[in-house]
């Protein structure tokens, strides 16, 4: 049987505020356990929450960036459940009157098409603390530093139909919240966490199947694997005539397996009610406009500008514009030379490969955009060959010198582009290889001739000590051999 896959996402985004959503405790990462947990965060009797204005500003910025309606009057509710990392016994969240209403995000797919994913809403809420289950003689350790960290939970419509689309959306959202500066985007520290709702329905059917929720995926790769895993699991059950139970599942990426976390029946009875400790928050036009003024260029706008300003194709423009830091690096590199396409190739090629290999971010790279830009300029003006350029890149990366010109000079990588000198070398090399010259000239197939040119290149590069401009050598060879 053929199945349609239906995917919706819930994304928790930690907001990059200095303090918590309801208290003046620091949210800085990495502090000693419980040193950033105040009386409010610990739910001491008699404390009252006071909301953080910046959390609202960030949420509104997000709403504007996804073309959403802003909730002019947002209300906090209590979601009741017991867990030791939630000292109050309830999470303060927003149920019926969220800060961000319906909006949308357009995603680009690998086949070049684009797709609109609708945002159902996004609401403000508080994060819980952390439970540590190891090493405490059968006890669980609780660190409440994270308790009360502001989150927005973004809920999409079930608009995605494959793991590819879900991951494309997740990456786009990551790019968006990092670009506008409301989240540090550090997924390894849990700054973005994805819950994936998945159901299957017979191909073409209008009726949605029962869904499961796979929680707390914190990497794009795990997300892709978890979706593939869950789709297969559901398909097996349905094709054996079974039925899907609505439940929350946990995915273990290291083992590629999942297990049921809890049946929704009991756990889902959260008994929401409006929080009596908090009054409705009213957002006026002035607040919205001041948030709009803080929005930097959005990735979509940047992509359009890169295509227009630098003549990049859609694919390169997208890769360079998604991450604001990569985009800034690229623009710095382009500033040094005129060849934007070449700069794009180097940023997306050699430079990105090196970052990946060393697991570094752009900010941690040992070279700057303008250093790479200078190298690109030397490739563009034929000072250095592309193989020589790789040596220069290597030396820049290792910090042997701080600019490309110095390295080209020191390592003798300057290309000989003096046609007179190159012609003389070609004449000498050809004179020493009469048989190959004759073979070439007797060959009727131009494709084979082209291949045979390679046989002359080796000796030529040797004769020029690797410094001859290969492109010019090629031109001269073809001319001389043809004549």
């Amino acid at each position, binding site marked *: 049987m053929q199945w349609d896959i239906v995917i919706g996402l819930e994304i928790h985004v930690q907001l990059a505020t200095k303090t918590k959503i309801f208290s003046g405790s620091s949210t800085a990462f990495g502090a000693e356990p419980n040193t950033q947990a105040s*009386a409010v965060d610990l739910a001491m009797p008699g404390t009252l929450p006071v909301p953080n204005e910046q959390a609202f500003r960030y949420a509104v910025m997000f709403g504007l960036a996804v073309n959403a309606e802003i909730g002019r009057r947002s209300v906090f509710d209590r979601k009741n459940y017991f867990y030791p990392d939630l000292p109050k016994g309830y999470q303060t969240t927003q149920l019926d009157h969220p800060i961000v209403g319906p909006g949308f995000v357009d995603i680009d797919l690998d086949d070049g098409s684009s797709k609109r994913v609708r945002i159902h809403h996004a609401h403000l809420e508080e994060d819980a603390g952390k439970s540590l289950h190891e090493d*405490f003689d059968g006890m669980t350790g609780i660190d409440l530093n994270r308790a009360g960290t502001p989150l927005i939970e973004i809920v999409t419509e079930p608009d995605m139909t494959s793991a590819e689309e879900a991951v494309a959306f997740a990456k786009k959202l990551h790019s968006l919240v990092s670009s506008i500066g409301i989240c540090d985007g550090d997924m390894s520290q849990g700054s973005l966490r994805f819950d994936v709702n998945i159901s299957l329905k017979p191909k073409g059917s209008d009726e949605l199947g029962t869904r499961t929720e796979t929680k707390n995926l914190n990497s794009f790769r795990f997300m892709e694997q978890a979706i593939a895993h869950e789709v297969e699991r559901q398909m097996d059950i349905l094709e054996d005539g079974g039925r899907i139970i609505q439940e929350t599942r946990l995915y273990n990426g290291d083992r590629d397996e999942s297990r049921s976390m809890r049946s929704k029946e009991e756990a889902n009875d959260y008994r929401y009610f409006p929080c009596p400790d908090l009054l409705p928050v009213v957002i006026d036009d002035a607040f919205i406009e001041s948030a709009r003024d803080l929005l930097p260029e959005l990735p979509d706008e940047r992509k359009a500008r890169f295509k227009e300003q630098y003549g990049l194709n859609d694919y390169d423009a997208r890769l360079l514009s998604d991450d604001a830091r990569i985009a800034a690096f690229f623009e710095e590199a382009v500033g040094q030379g005129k060849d934007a396409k070449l700069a794009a190739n180097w940023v997306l090629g050699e430079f990105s490969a090196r970052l990946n290999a060393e697991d570094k971010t752009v900010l941690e790279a040992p070279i700057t955009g303008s250093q790479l830009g200078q190298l690109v300029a030397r490739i563009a003006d034929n000072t250095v060959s592309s193989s020589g350029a790789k040596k220069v890149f290597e030396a820049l990366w290792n910090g042997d010198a701080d600019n490309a010109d110095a390295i080209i000079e020191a390592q003798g990588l300057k290309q000989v582009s003096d046609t007179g000198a190159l012609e003389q070398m070609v004449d000498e090399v050809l004179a020493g290889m009469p048989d190959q010259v004759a073979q070439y000239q007797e060959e009727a197939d131009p494709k084979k001739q082209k291949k045979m040119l390679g046989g002359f290149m080796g000796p030529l590069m040797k004769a020029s000590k690797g410094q001859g401009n290969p492109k010019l050598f090629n031109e001269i060879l073809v001319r001389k051999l043809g004549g």
Partner: protein
Amino acid sequence: MTISREDIEKVAVLARIRLDEEQIPALENDLGNILSLVDQLSAADTDNVEPLAHPLDAVQRLRADKVTETNQREAFQAIAPATESGLYLVPRVIE
């Protein structure tokens, strides 16, 4: 409106309240009375009344994003039953 024994037992579980068997009939009666009162309220015509999120007719004030709290861990943990390495210890939680 009445409330069943099962409802009471379920709410007790959700609220982590231990009930003795003999308490349940009295609770059935008390909670039933409260629900009757709610029924009475529900009968009022509210077609032209805006839903109320809070009994005070006021708007929430917001706070500037400045750190105002200092580390008081020692004071807080002085009243905790068990701590270790700065963590609060609780009976093991297994999901």
